[in-house]
């Protein structure tokens, strides 16, 4: 009942006639989709490009972690406001910290925040989506109304209220904070898929064979959800990382751990842009942009598995 015409239309698009029933499940997934995900030579180009970009970022931060001295990331460790040179490859900030060191230490933290929130968000989404899609009833109604309502709220507003009330922010707590709003899309996409899987003949066969509800959920429904779980995970991780970088740039991040977002915050606070210190604000921006472009390619690639309809349109 809580579903509006807008959301209904958003799910089905114009590809189905407007007179289709509101709760029509999305088009059934081709049965071979799970096999395709395991890679029978059908890896899409953009997925590979995205994964290569993300692996390069990870490699850079791991290798860089061996080469830099974490002490150079502490205020006053090196000569302040130096442009890039042989001694300081990416220069130093006005607080006397080495930019390369902060970048190398900050990148894995930002990724960790995104992954934490992605895992938590998808886990919640999986449980809620399975329960509400498979069993329906009042639980389904509540979950749907709540996730609809939260999806239309500007995320930053709720996250702000949580973040300013967290006494001592750590990357893990930041991950949990942004996870509080990263479960709605996974819930909805998994629920929609469960609705469609529930009606398949093999579920009826399993039930006729005397399988318990739990067995059906875990052995018949779950494996067919894998592509959707993968797609939701990429989406949730990227959304959460975006939110965390934003909160940190506003000054709600960790003070004692470097992340890409807090680097932006300090650069902004000490007017690095107005002072023309491009080597200070440039590297974190470039790194964040690279990560998001990588995620963009990965999600475009994963969507092809999760949404066979996309493959037909060039």
């Amino acid at each position, binding site marked *: 009942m809580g579903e509006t015409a807008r959301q209904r239309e958003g799910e089905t698009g*114009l590809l189905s006639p407007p007179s289709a029933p509101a709760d029509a499940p999305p088009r059934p997934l081709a049965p071979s989709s799970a096999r395709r995900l395991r890679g029978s030579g059908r890896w899409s180009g953009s997925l590979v490009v995205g994964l290569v970009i993300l692996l390069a970022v990870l490699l850079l931060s791991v290798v860089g972690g061996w080469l830099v001295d974490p002490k150079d990331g502490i205020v006053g460790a090196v000569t302040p406001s130096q442009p890039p040179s042989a001694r300081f490859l990416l220069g130093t900030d006005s607080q006397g910290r080495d930019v390369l060191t902060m970048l190398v230490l900050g990148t894995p933290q930002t990724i960790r925040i995104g992954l934490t929130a992605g895992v938590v968000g998808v886990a919640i989404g999986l449980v809620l989506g399975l329960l509400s899609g498979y069993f329906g009833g009042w639980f389904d109604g509540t979950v749907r109304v709540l996730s609809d309502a939260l999806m239309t709220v500007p995320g*930053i507003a709720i996250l702000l*209220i949580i973040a300013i*009330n967290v006494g001592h922010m750590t990357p893990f707590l930041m991950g949990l904070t942004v996870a509080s709003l990263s479960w709605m899309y996974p819930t909805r996409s998994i629920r929609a898929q469960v609705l469609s899987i529930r009606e398949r003949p093999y579920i009826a066969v399993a039930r006729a064979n005397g399988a318990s509800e739990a067995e059906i959920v875990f052995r018949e429904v779950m494996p067919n959800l894998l592509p959707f779980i993968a797609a939701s995970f990429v989406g949730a991780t990227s959304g959460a990382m975006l939110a965390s*970088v*934003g909160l940190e740039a506003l000054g709600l991040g960790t003070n004692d751990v470097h992340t890409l977002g807090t680097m932006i915050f300090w650069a902004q606070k000490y007017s690095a*842009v*107005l002072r023309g210190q491009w080597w200070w604000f440039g590297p974190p921006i470039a790194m964040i942009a690279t990560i998001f*472009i990588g995620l963009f390619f990965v999600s475009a690639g994963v969507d092809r598995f999760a949404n066979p309809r996309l493959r037909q349109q060039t």
Partner: protein
Amino acid sequence: MSLEYLVTRVGQLLLIVFIAVTVNFLIPRAIPGDPIESALQTRIAMTGSTDVNVQEVAAAYRAKFGLDKPIWVQYLNYWRDIFRLDFGVSLVDFPQPVISKVQAALPWTLGLLGVSTAIDFTLGTLLGALAAWPRAPSFVRGLLPPFMLLSAVPFFLLAIVLLSIFAVELRVFPPGGGFDPVRIVRFNLPTIVDILYHAILPSMSLVLGGIGGWALGMRAMMVSTLGEDYITFAEAKGLPARRVFLWYGMRNALLPQVTRLAVALGSILSGAVLVEAMFSYPGLGGLLVGAIAGKDYFVIQGIVLMLIVSLALSLFVVDLIYPLVDPRIRYQR
């Protein structure tokens, strides 16, 4: 439009407002410690000022909120204050009421957001439709990939890059703010020009980052619309290409775009707040940065509430005018 739909939709609006107010009320109370006193203490430790009497202000707040009363009484009182538009007073600019600060900032945010979204929606939709149109000039298709990459980058990072290029290196645009600080803001032409001049860079960062998403969605819809039989028929009939493109193609592919606009407004608003923060724009985002830096707790709460409620209201309006955009939509189940 059926009455049932209207009732459901109003219910959803009320639910969002209810969640916003309840979250605003509950979360500070769920965290151990006295938020008011600790916020005041932090502020005083930070500014080193002694002209605010912590105990006095905190006591005033406690009496006002009735913090000694049971929690449900506090909750009801909280609602009563909201209905009176009483969000407390600013701790930084004590005793200026929060509502006056938020009220002054809101038009800036709505103006910047409204104009930028209108521009990037129009340009992006047009670009996407042209990219699917076989007779479009070939450079149009070349525009798509760069805009899609830009759309993957957060708005506020584009803002910093634009700021550094156009305001610091080239010095063609002002480096922030909503108007010239020495200007007396009145309703006359120079003021309007000045405000527009200051709005160009912030809105450019929203537009550049927004076009790609709209173009991508529109292109997909347009590809499937152009495959329809009535397009072939219109072409066979000898209709001019422009007419087929605009009225047979775009007109029918447009609806999911409007849908997406309604769904995306929340994240656009979040992005705009951050862009404002980067430009010290006088909207809610600019206000927010100062409030966070100064731990101005009640101002932050006021901004949060205002963000949620104004977005919920605009979505409500969008939903109601929806059947006007496309008569195929009828609100029924």
